[in-house]
Structure formats: C-alpha cells, structure tokens
C-alpha cells in the first residue's frame, strides 16, 4: 500500500500547480468565483500532500536507508542527460512533512483571515504556486531542478510580499527581496554550472554531471580531487551564496525584515518556516561537499553566528511586532547555519523543524493580534491583550518559552545544537550561541510582556478572534509542545556520518543554557513588566534600532553610488555612442546639403567647379610626382 503512495508522490507536486491554474483560469473565464470552493480546493491539495508525506514518512521509519528516485529525461545532449523527477530520502521526507503541515494550517488560517480581502482568489492562487514550487524544491532529484524550483519559490515569494501592490512600501519590499535573492541565485547558478563542468570534463560518469542528490558524496570526492583548494572553496562559496540570500544571512539579510509588508499568513508560511529554511535545506543536501573543507564549514558557521548575533541585537529595540519576529527568524536561521557549519548537523536540522512550527505559530498569533486591533502593528499601542485574547496569549507564551530554549521543542533542539558544538570543541561558537540565547529570551519576552501584559494602550476595543484562527494556532501549539519527544528518533533518522549519540553528559550544557534563558526572561520581566526605569545606552539603542545602518549603507550604495555610475554610463551612451551615430548621419546630411546647394543650374558655377577641380587634381598630381621623383633620386633608382 505504501508503494502506491510512494510511486505516485509526484502528484503531490502537480496537484497544487493544477489548483493554481484552475483558480487563475477559472477567474479569467468566470467559472470559479466562490471563495469557499477556492479555499476548499487549496486545502484539499495540501491535505493530499500531508497524507502522502505522513504515509511516506511512516514507511521510511520502518525501512531505514530507503531512497526512492524516479525521474524522466528532460534534456538529452549526447551522453549528458538532465533529469526531472522526484527524489525521496530521509531529509526530503522530513522537509515535505514540515512544508505540507504548516502550509495546510496556514491555508486554514488564511481562509478566515483573508476572507474579506478583494483579491482572495489571487492570494490562494499564489499560495498554491508557492506550494508547488516548495514541494518541487524539496523533492528535487538534482541540483538543476533544485535551481528551477529555487527560482520559482523566489517568484512566489515576490508575488506574495507584493500582494498589496498598491501600497508603495509593499511593492518596494517585494522588489528588494527579489533583488537580494537574485544576487544569491546568481551564485547558486554559477556554482552549479561549475560543478557540472568539472564533473563532466574530468569524470567518466556523465550521469553525475547533473549533480544528482543521491550521489552527492561521490560528486564531492570527485570535485575535491579534480580541483585545487582555491577553486573548490570558490565553488562552495558560490553555492553558499544561494543559501545565504534565501535564508537571509548576514550580507544579504536586509530583505527579510522588509518582507513583513506581505500579509501575515505569508510571513508565517514563507518567511519564517518554509522558504527561508530552503537555504538550510540546501546546505544539508550538499553537506558531504562542504564538509570536505574545514574553511568552508567555518565560513558557514561564522556567517551564521554573525547573523544570529546582529539580528538578535536588532530585534531588541524594534517596535513593529512583525519586525521583531522577522529579526528573530533571521537570528534563528543564523543559529541553524552555525549548527550546520560547526558540525552539529542533526541539531541544526532539528532546530529547523521545531523552529518552523513555533515561529509560524508566533506569526499567526501576531496576525490575530494585528487583526483584532484593526491593523495596528506597533507594540507601543498594545498591552494587556491577555484579557481579550486568552488563547492567543497562551500560544504566544508557549512559543516564547520554546524559542527561548526553556522547555518544549525549542529546548530539545537548542540542547542538540549546544551539545553538538561542545562535542566538536567549538567553544567560541558555543559562547556566541549562549549570547544569542540570552538575547532571544530577552526580546521574545519583551514582546510578550509589552503586548499581552500590563494595561491596554489602544483606542478601540480588540475584536475576538474567530474559531478557525484559534484552531490553527492550537494545532501548532500542540506540535510545539510535543515535537521534543521525537528528538531521539530524529537523531537516528537524520544523521550525517557517525554523528549520533550527542546526548551524553547533557547536564552541564542544559544547566548553563536554561539558566541563561531564565536570566533573559527575568531581565525582560523586570524591565518591561514591572516598568523599572533603566538607563538606555543611547548609542547602543540607536545602533540597534537603525540596524547598524546596514540598510542605509545599502541605500547609499544603490542610490548614490550605483545611480552615479549609471548616470555616467547613461551620459556616455547618450552623448558619446549615440553622438557618433548621429555624427555619421549629420556628416552625410551636411555633405548632401553642400552638394545639393552646388547644383545652381548656372553654367558659370559649373565652369568654376570644373576649373577648381582640375587645378586641385593637377596640384596633387604634381605633388605626387615630385615626391616620387625625390624618393627615386634618394634611393638611387632613376
């Protein structure tokens, strides 16, 4: 029975695409207008995916090391075959499970949340497009298909961020996200082509040239032996740039916070749980390649640590509720990169899974809050919402506890990362990790205390939250609380090399990290709940509030420097290149004007021209003759 499911797993990719086309065409042809039908179709397609994911997952649990690959030749050039198809192994089935379940819950949520929006069908069409591309990305059998779906994910993210395209800030944010992602995609494409080139050129196995994920270990070994160190590192860094842009890591992190201009369910689905995790997923996929070089691994870890630190720091002072969560996402993604780079492979991926659940829950909670306060996002105008939205407050609190690493699933995944770091003797990274954990606890509980405790500071009374919204966050809360149980199973299910049995001597790290989380919560409690006056170090506050001026720097880079350069180029193009062309035309025109003016029709002028021409040609002939004679005499030839 499982065989039928696994053999037909490609339909999981195609179903959302079909629904997407159905909604778009149905709207065009005025066939499907009903919002209920649209949302039911979407939910059905995602539920279909959930069922397939669960069945496949259960089957994979029973048969360890089972790998299913089914692909068709898409492009054939001599002995080079580019395949498109599906590839299922432990990693992709976990991702499939995460993507489909969160997608389902978010769609359930948006059925209610977006119901009053005029563009409801468009929203669901985009959600389906995203589902299609994300599932396609997760089930890609090779790096080329991965790249195609990588771009599709970027496009659907662009469409969804700019969903309210009439708002200028949303349109700008969409463009920013797309451009930042393009920078990374360029690196990914260049790296992919480079790998393909080296494998095709030097190895005997042409089938490896499309970089199939089933054989990535061999490809890594080949590539390592065919290239020297510098080239190998450059290829890896190019590939990593794709991951950095998609997961909003340090040099390219600025788009994620602006992406919050999109509707809240989009933030919950794409910009916290699934799409931004694609970068982490790709690193996990190509892990055998990266792990060949210590430099590359350290690079990943350092970038991750920088991102985690600065984004946690930024999150402390933000006033927009969604921005706090966005920077929190950013910082947690940094922790995943840190874990992967420092060798805590299983821990990083487990954190991906748990983080996906509790972060999407946080976003959905923030959506409820924003919805009930009539689109108020500033936390300074909230407060005391626990009385009005008790369930939301409880869920938010659960997620906060979890993300701080105090209890529940977040505790388990953070413990795994920390013990992985300590096991691989990365003490500096461990210290950085603890600092991030402290800041995480602090800013998450700051947002909790400011939003849900104290007195209400808004003007109109908050609305009650509808049943569907409560249902989806409750299900996510259940996931958040109980996912930690599967930690042991996960360690055996997803492993790299002999990277198991991390959980020995756990006592010390547990004590340290829990006490640090408690410290952070206590600080937040003292400052924001008890309203103790604190001295705000002004410079530090400003730096954090303005995000180290990195956005301003990019603005400067694009508006001043880039515009100046392009103005210079435009000037050169307009006046030099175009000028030459115009000059050629003008030259002909001027000559023809002169010649036409010369045709007076008066015989005397013709006479004059004839004599002048004769005189000139005679002078030239004489000159040439004398020169030739001179030369002949000088060289002795006469």
């Amino acid at each position, binding site marked *: 029975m499982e065989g039928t499911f696994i053999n037909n797993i490609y339909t999981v990719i195609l179903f959302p695409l079909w629904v997407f086309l159905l909604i778009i065409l149905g709207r065009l042809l005025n066939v499907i207008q009903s919002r209920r039908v649209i949302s039911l179709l979407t939910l059905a397609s995602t539920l279909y995916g959930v069922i397939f994911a669960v069945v496949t997952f259960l089957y994979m649990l029973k048969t360890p090391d089972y790998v299913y690959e089914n692909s068709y030749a898409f492009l054939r050039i001599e002995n080079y075959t580019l395949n498109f198809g599906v590839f299922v192994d432990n990693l992709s089935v976990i991702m499939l499970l995460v993507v489909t379940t969160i997608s389902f819950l978010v769609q359930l949520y948006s059925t209610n949340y977006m119901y009053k929006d005029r563009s409801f069908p468009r929203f669901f069409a985009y959600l389906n497009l995203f589902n299609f591309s994300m599932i396609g990305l997760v089930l890609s059998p090779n790096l080329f298909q991965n790249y195609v779906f990588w771009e599709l994910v970027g496009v659907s993210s662009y469409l969804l961020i700019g969903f309210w395209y009439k708002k200028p800030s949303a349109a700008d944010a969409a463009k920013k996200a797309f451009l930042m992602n393009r920078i990374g995609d360029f690196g990914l494409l260049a790296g992919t082509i480079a790998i393909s080139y080296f494998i095709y050129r030097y190895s005997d196995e042409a089938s490896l040239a499309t970089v199939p994920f089933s054989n990535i270990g061999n490809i890594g070994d080949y590539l390592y032996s065919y290239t020297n160190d510098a080239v190998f590192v450059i290829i890896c860094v190019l590939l990593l740039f794709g991951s950095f842009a998609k997961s909003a890591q340090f040099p390219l992190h600025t788009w994620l916070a602006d992406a919050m201009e999109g509707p809240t369910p989009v933030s919950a689905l794409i910009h916290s749980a699934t799409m931004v995790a694609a970068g982490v997923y790709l690193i996990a996929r190509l892990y055998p390649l990266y792990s060949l070089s210590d430099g590359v691994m350290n690079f990943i870890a350092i970038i991750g640590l920088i991102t985690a630190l600065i984004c946690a720091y930024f999150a402390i002072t933000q006033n927009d509720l969604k921005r706090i969560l966005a920077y929190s996402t950013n910082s947690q993604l940094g922790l995943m990169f840190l874990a992967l780079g420092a060798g805590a492979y299983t821990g990083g991926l487990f954190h991906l899974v748990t983080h996906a659940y509790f972060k999407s829950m946080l976003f959905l909670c923030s959506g409820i809050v924003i919805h009930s306060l009539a689109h108020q996002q500033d936390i300074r105008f909230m407060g005391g919402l626990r009385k009005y939205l008790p369930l939301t407050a409880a869920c938010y609190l659960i997620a906060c506890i979890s993300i701080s690493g105090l209890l529940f699933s977040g505790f388990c995944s953070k413990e795994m990362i920390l013990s992985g770091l300590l096991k691989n003797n990365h003490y500096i990274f461990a210290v950085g990790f603890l600092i991030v954990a402290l800041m995480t606890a602090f800013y998450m509980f700051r947002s909790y205390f400011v939003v849900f405790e104290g007195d209400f500071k808004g003007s109109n009374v908050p609305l009650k939250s509808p049943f569907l919204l409560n249902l989806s966050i409750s299900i996510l809360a259940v996931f958040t609380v109980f996912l930690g149980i599967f930690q042991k199973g996960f360690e055996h299910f997803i492993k790299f090399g002999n990277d198991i049995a991390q959980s020995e001597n756990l006592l010390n790290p547990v004590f340290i990290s829990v006490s640090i989380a408690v410290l952070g919560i206590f600080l937040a409690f003292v400052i924001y709940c008890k309203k103790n006056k604190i001295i705000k170090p002004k410079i530090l506050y400003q730096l954090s509030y303005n995000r180290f001026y990195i956005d301003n720097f990019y603005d400067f880079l694009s508006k001043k420097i880039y515009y100046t350069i392009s103005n210079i180029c435009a000037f050169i193009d307009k006046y030099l290149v175009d000028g030459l062309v115009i000059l050629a035309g003008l030259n002909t025109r001027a000559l023809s004007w002169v010649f036409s003016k010369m*045709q*007076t*029709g*008066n*015989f*005397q*002028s*013709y*006479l*004059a021209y004839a*004599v002048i021409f004769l005189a000139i040609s005679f002078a030239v002939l004489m000159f040439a003759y004398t020169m030739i004679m001179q030369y002949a005499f000088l060289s002795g030839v006469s």
Partner: protein
Amino acid sequence: MIELLFDIGLYHYLILALILFSIGFFGAIVAKNMLKVLISVEFMLTAVNINFIAFAGFFDNIKLSGFVFSLFYLAVGAVEIAIALAIFYLMFRTKQSVNTEDYNCGKE
C-alpha cells in the same frame, strides 16, 4: 632687377599668358552679360595661343610646328565663337535676355 624686366625670356610670355587666362576665367565666371562671357572665352583662347607661340619660339626654331598649330588654333577659335554666337542667338530668341542668371536651365 632691371635685367629681369627688360631681358625678355620665356617666363615673361608664360606669365602674360597666365594673367590673360586668369582674367578670361574670372570674366567667364562672374560676368553678368552673356556677350562679356563670350569675350572672356576669347581671352582664354588667346592666352593659350600665346603659350603655344612662346614655347615654339624658344624651343622649336626649325620645324615651326608651334606657330602653324597656333594659326590653326586661331581658326578653330573663330569657328568656335561663331557656333557659340549662333547658339546664343537661338537661346536669346526664347529667353529675350542677355543676363547670365536667366540661363540656369542646367538644373533641369
């Protein structure tokens, strides 16, 4: 300097011919009256004849072919001017003008 002026040589003739030719050419292209143009053409013919005679006198004292040729050339010039006058007469009958600016049919 005095010798240059009074000891007449080939160059004096050539320069005289050049001056005559230039006057003729100038007259031919600027004259407003058609008859003046014809007279100027005669000037140019005469200048060329002077050249012939000068070269013949200085270099060819035996065969005298230059002199003979200049005689023929005078005759040819007379014939030319007769034809030119005939053409001019015919054109004058249609244009009713001696002004050269009216003779701009070369454009058509």
